[in-house]
C-alpha cells in the first residue's frame, strides 16, 4: 500500500490504518494513490466527519473497531494485514448482513471511503467526468452538437408552458 500518511489526528486517527484498509477494498484504485493522494483523501474524510454530530463520529469509530475485531475472529488477522481477497469476501458478507445495524454501519463507512476517493478533484478527470460551468461551450460545442447515435425525436409534451395557457393536467 503506497504512501501511508501515518496521520493520527482527526476522528478516525485511532482506527486510520483499519479504515484505510477498508477503503482499499471499497475502491481498489485507492491502492495506487501516492502520499499526496492519500493526504487529500484523508482531509476529505476527516473534515466530513468533523462536521457531523459527536454521536455519529463516535459510532463510526466504534464500528470500524468492531469490524476489525470480527475480521480477527473470521480471518485470523485484522483488516490492515488481511489478504485482499479474503478482506473483500469478509466485507461483502458484512454488507449483506441480516442484521440491519451491521449493514447500516458498513454503509456509513463505505460512504466515507467513496467520498474520500471520488470527492478528490483529481478523481473527476481519472473517471472522465468533465462538467464545467460553461457547459456546451467548454467542450467547444454549441448546444446539441454532441454526436448522437440514438437520434430519436422528442415525445409528445403534456405540459403547461409560459405563454401557452392550454394543456394543464399531468394525468395520463
Amino acid at each position, binding site marked *: 500500500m503506497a504512501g501511508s500518511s501515518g496521520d493520527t489526528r482527526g476522528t478516525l486517527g485511532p482506527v486510520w490504518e483499519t479504515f484505510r484498509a477498508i477503503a482499499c*477494498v*471499497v*475502491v*481498489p484504485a485507492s491502492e495506487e494513490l501516492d502520499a499526496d493522494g492519500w493526504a487529500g483523501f484523508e482531509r*476529505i474524510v476527516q473534515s*466530513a466527519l468533523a*462536521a*457531523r454530530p459527536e454521536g455519529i463520529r463516535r459510532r463510526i469509530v466504534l464500528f470500524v473497531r468492531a469490524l476489525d475485531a470480527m475480521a480477527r475472529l473470521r480471518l485470523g488477522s485484522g483488516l490492515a494485514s488481511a489478504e485482499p481477497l479474503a478482506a*473483500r469476501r469478509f466485507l461483502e458478507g458484512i*454488507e*449483506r448482513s441480516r442484521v*440491519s445495524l451491521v*449493514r*447500516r454501519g458498513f*454503509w456509513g463507512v*463505505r*460512504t466515507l*471511503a*467513496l*467520498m474520500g476517493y*471520488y*470527492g478528490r*478533484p483529481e478523481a*473527476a478527470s481519472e*473517471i472522465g*467526468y*468533465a*462538467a*464545467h*460551468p*460553461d*457547459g*456546451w*461551450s467548454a*467542450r467547444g*460545442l*454549441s*448546444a*446539441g452538437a*454532441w454526436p*448522437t*447515435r*440514438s*437520434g*430519436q*425525436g*422528442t*415525445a409528445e*409534451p*403534456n*405540459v*403547461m*408552458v*409560459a*405563454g401557452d395557457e392550454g394543456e*394543464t*393536467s*399531468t*394525468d*395520463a
Partner: protein
Amino acid sequence: MHEVVADVVVVGSGAGGGTVAQRLVPLAERGRKVIVVEQGPRFRDRDFDGNELRMARALYADAGGFLNEEGTLTLAFARAYGGSTVVYTGTSLPPPERVVRQWAVPGLAHDDLVRRARRYVGENNVHLLPDEEINENNRLFVGGCGAAGYSAHQFPVNVKGCRGSSLCNLGCPNGAKQGTHKVQLPSAEAAGVEVVTRAEAIRVEPGAVVVRVHPSEVGGPGTPPEWEPGSYRIRAPKIVVAGGAIGSSALLLRSGLGSGLPVLGRGLTVHPALILVGEHDHDVSNDVGHPKSFYVDRAADEGFLLETCTYFPFVTAKSLTGFGPAHERFMRAFPRLQMILVLACDRALHRNRVTVARDGRPAVHYAFTPELVRRLAAANRASARIFFGAGALRVHAPLADPQVLDAKDAQRVDELVAPSNFQPGRCSVSAAHLQGGCRMGLDAAESVTDSWGRVHGHPWLRVADASLFPDAIQINPYLTIMALADRVAEGVLADM
C-alpha cells in the same frame, strides 16, 4: 435580545416562502413591514463553482447527508436564500387532478391550484428546451422508452440562458435557473420586503418569532448576514412558516404546538428514489446539457416515476450498491453511463414523521412499506428495459440479483429483479421531494391547517410550503407548492 417590530414575518425563503414574500408586496407598498428570515446564506452566482463536496456542504443540510433515524434514507434539502429552489433541477409540472381529488381537502380545488401555478409558469419562464439542447443521456432515454413500450414526456423547465453545465443540483453558476432566489425574492426586496439571511427562527409564539442570526463562516461562500449576529425577537401579528417539510414541522414542534395538534409532524412523504445506470459502448453526454429533460409517469398505474438525471462522481459512487472491482468498473465507465432516477410514490403514514431531538434539531422517522418496495422493484424493471432498449451493454439495478445485468439478461429482467433483493441500509435510497407534516384538512384531530394554511386554533399562524401536502403529490412538487403558497399569501392579505 434585540427587539424588532413588523407586520408579517415569513420563516423560510424557498418555493413556499419566496412566493409568499412576493405576494405580500402590496403590504410593503402600503408601508407595512414584511420580514423574511432565512437560516441559509445568500449566494452569488459566482459562489457556485461546481465543486461537489464544497457545494454540498455550503448548500445542503448536513452537507447532503441528512439521514433518517433508521439510517436507511438520505434526505436532500437546501438552506439558502431561495431554499431548495437553488438546487432543484427546475422541472415544472402542475399538480395532477387525480391526486388533488384524492387529497380531499375541504375548500381546495384542483382548478384553483392550476390557475395559480400558471402565474409562476409565466413568471419563472417555464418552457420546453428546443431539441438541439437535449443531450445524449436524454435522447437515449426517449429511444429506450420507445423500444421498451413506455411513453416518455418532455419536462418543461424554468431556465433562462442555460449554458448546459449540468450542475443544477450544486447551484447554477450561470444564473439561468429561475428559482425564487432569481425571481420572487429579488422582486419582493425591490418593493420593500426585507430578507434577512443566516437568520434561524428558533421558535414562534403568538405575536413573535425568536430568531438567531449567525455569523458567516470564515472563508465560506455567500454574503454576510444583513443583521448583526445575535438574538432577536421580531414582534408581528401575523407569522407565516415556510421552512420546508422538515423545517416547518420541527419549528412548530419546538414551539410547543404539538400538544393541541396531534398529527403535527406526521404523514411525511418523500418519493424515495434510487439512481440506476446503464453502461453504453460509446460516450453519453451526461455531464453537459440540462440534466433532466424527460420522464415516464407510471404513478397512477404502477406507483412510480422515471426521470433522466445526471449526478456527480461521489453521489454516483454512493448510489451504486456494492463496492470493489465491479463498482469501480462502473465508475471508470462514467462518460458512458446513461442515468435514470426512479421515484416511488409513497403514502402518508402516521408513523413516518418529523420530531425534534433534545437539542432542537429535526429528526426524521421513515420506514419502507412492502408496497413501496414493490413499487421500487417495478421501477427497477422498467428502467432496466429502457436501458437495454437504448442499447446498454450492462445495467446496474440495486433490486436485481445479481445487481449487474448484462445485455444477455435483458429478457430475464422480470425474474432477476425482485422486492426481496431490497435490503434497507444496503441500497442507497435518497429523497428530495419532502412533503407533509403540517397537512391541510378539516380540523385539528386529523390535520394541522385548513386549506388556506391557517393553523387550527392559532389564527396568527399560517404554513406555506410542502409540509401542507396531505399525501404525496406523485409528480415533481415545486409548482404545486408555489400555488399553495400563493393561496396562503392571499389569505394573509385578506386578513390585513
